[in-house]
């Protein structure tokens, strides 16, 4: 592998890992704070991608689609939490699995009814459609770099919100001991709703950003969901920082696995997970 293609694969790994982080961070927060296993989290990624397709077709611009889609995703998340997930906090994991599994079926069929089963493309916005030449034949698309930059900005913002704001303090406290938080007079239900809506919006945003490069297709959420599970397992439940590191590890392992050992590439990430399980069953960054 020469230097230019190595650089391209490295940038791809980074971009893929960061995109996965957007999905996994919401998942790990919902796990950590509410104790809920949400199989439908991958569907939010799928819904985001289809929102990008529908809204870009309607408005003609991905930016307009993002501006409309993110508030829609936030509202959708808050609505779902209020209508369904708020009833699940005291149920056992099995019922959470079942309900969210049912939701996947519902979301996929609604997607099929509303948009159909065809594969669709979404245009890359014109100002980002250029490519940076790296050698005589190889070049790197600007849009992928933009995705990476947006994800990094969001990761920093998320870190800031969680570590430096009052809301973040409440989220961290809820992650630690929800009964105590309630006893201190904090409205934990409001925290739950905010965190859930945030998780949905992050996953949907990942889908919207990915739509122009991955295209939009049925069941696109399930692969992302399972990879996000792997990330949460590696990083440790509830740890956003762990999710970032694990997402980058998976981004690199998956991308380079596809290049170096294509016939086993589907399995490599799971092997990494198995090794981490032997080493630290609670994930790399789980404390205590």
């Amino acid at each position: 592998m020469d230097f230019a293609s190595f650089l391209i694969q490295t940038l791809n790994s980074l971009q893929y890992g960061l995109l996965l982080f957007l999905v996994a961070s919401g998942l790990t927060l919902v796990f950590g704070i509410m104790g809920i296993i949400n199989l439908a989290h991958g569907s939010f990624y799928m819904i985001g991608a289809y929102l990008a397709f529908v809204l870009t077709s309607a408005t003609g611009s991905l930016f307009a689609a993002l501006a409309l889609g993110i508030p829609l995703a936030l509202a959708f998340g808050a609505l779902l939490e209020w209508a369904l997930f708020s009833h699940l906090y005291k149920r056992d994991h099995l019922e959470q699995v079942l309900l969210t599994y049912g939701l996947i079926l519902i979301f996929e069929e609604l997607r099929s009814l509303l948009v159909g089963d065809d594969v669709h493309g979404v245009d890359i916005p014109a100002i980002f459609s250029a490519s940076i030449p790296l050698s005589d034949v190889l070049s790197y698309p600007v849009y992928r770099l933009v995705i990476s930059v947006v994800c990094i900005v969001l990761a920093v913002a998320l870190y800031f919100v969680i570590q430096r704001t009052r809301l973040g303090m409440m989220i961290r406290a809820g992650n630690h001991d929800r009964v105590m938080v309630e006893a201190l007079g904090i409205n934990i239900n409001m925290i739950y709703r905010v965190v859930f809506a945030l998780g949905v919006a992050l996953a949907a945003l990942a889908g919207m950003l990915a739509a122009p490069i991955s295209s939009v297709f049925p069941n696109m959420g399930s692969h992302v969901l399972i990879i996000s599970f792997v990330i949460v397992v590696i990083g440790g439940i509830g740890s956003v920082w762990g999710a970032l590191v694990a997402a980058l590890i998976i981004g690199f392992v998956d991308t380079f696995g596809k290049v170096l050992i294509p016939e086993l590439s589907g399995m490599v990430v799971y092997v990494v997970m198995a090794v981490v399980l032997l080493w630290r069953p609670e994930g790399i960054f789980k404390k205590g």
Partner: protein
Amino acid sequence: MRYDLVLKLAAVGGLALVPLSGADFYTELIAKTLVLAIFAMSLDLLVGYTGLVSLGHAAYFGIAAYTVALMSPKYEAASLWLTMPAAVGAAALAALVIGVFVLRTKGIYFIMVTLAFAQMAFYAFHDTPLGGGSDGIYVNMKPTAEIAGFMPFDLDNPTHLYYFILAMLVLVYLFVGRVLQSPFGRVLVGIKSNEHRMQSLGYVTFRYKLAAFALAGGLGGIAGYLYAVVFGFVTPELLSWHQSGNVLLMVILGGMGNLVGAIAGAFAFVAMQEVFSAWTKHWQLAMGLVIVAAVLFLPGGLSAIPARIKRALQGGSAND
């Protein structure tokens, strides 16, 4: 107790009458349902009795199905007596190895990790040419039951196949029931209700859970084997997480920790699938709505309905 036994015998008798009706479509449909019922019972051993929520149980179903497909020569029938133990053994062995990894985790982790390992098995068949890749592989000839020139039954005959599956269902039911009555089974139930207490009583719970995991994998393998024999076609989809989700759904639908419930769950699942898919192409939407409604309004599953009705009929006295 005796009343219970009469009901069960009547149910088996009723199932035994199905092929006599001559309705081939329904015979095959019920054969398929019985296979799924075995699969659901095997998972119930984990979910309902040991308290291990596995979301990757389809892996063992699929591994057994692939074992028979790979062992069958192209133009002649393989031996039932050879392929079945091999398929079940392969499934149990896979469960044993995967169990060593997944049983290091608990709760939500366990759910995610079982799913991830099943996905790994899925890719092992999907991405490699071993079993025909994503296209799958045919089992051209059903295994033969011939042994030393003697042929007790013929699996090519749909009626014989049906009775073979029904017999397997009864055997698995009796076997799992017996296991649960044994000291080993009591330990599993103890682990479900309080693993720490079992540990402080001196049980190495990891070993018991691993044994249960491998056993459930092997029993799931019986179902996978029968599935491959009935349909003669094996694809990676058999290991997909939708398959794992569906069987978990059957167990919960019937009410966990209840073998008859698992069987009822399989019947309810197939019935829903048939009714909804006859009604609309988007039958999964209806299925999803039923699942969501069931979780919200019917905790305890189908097998909790009689108790609920009883409570409703008795009115206030039940609350005393």
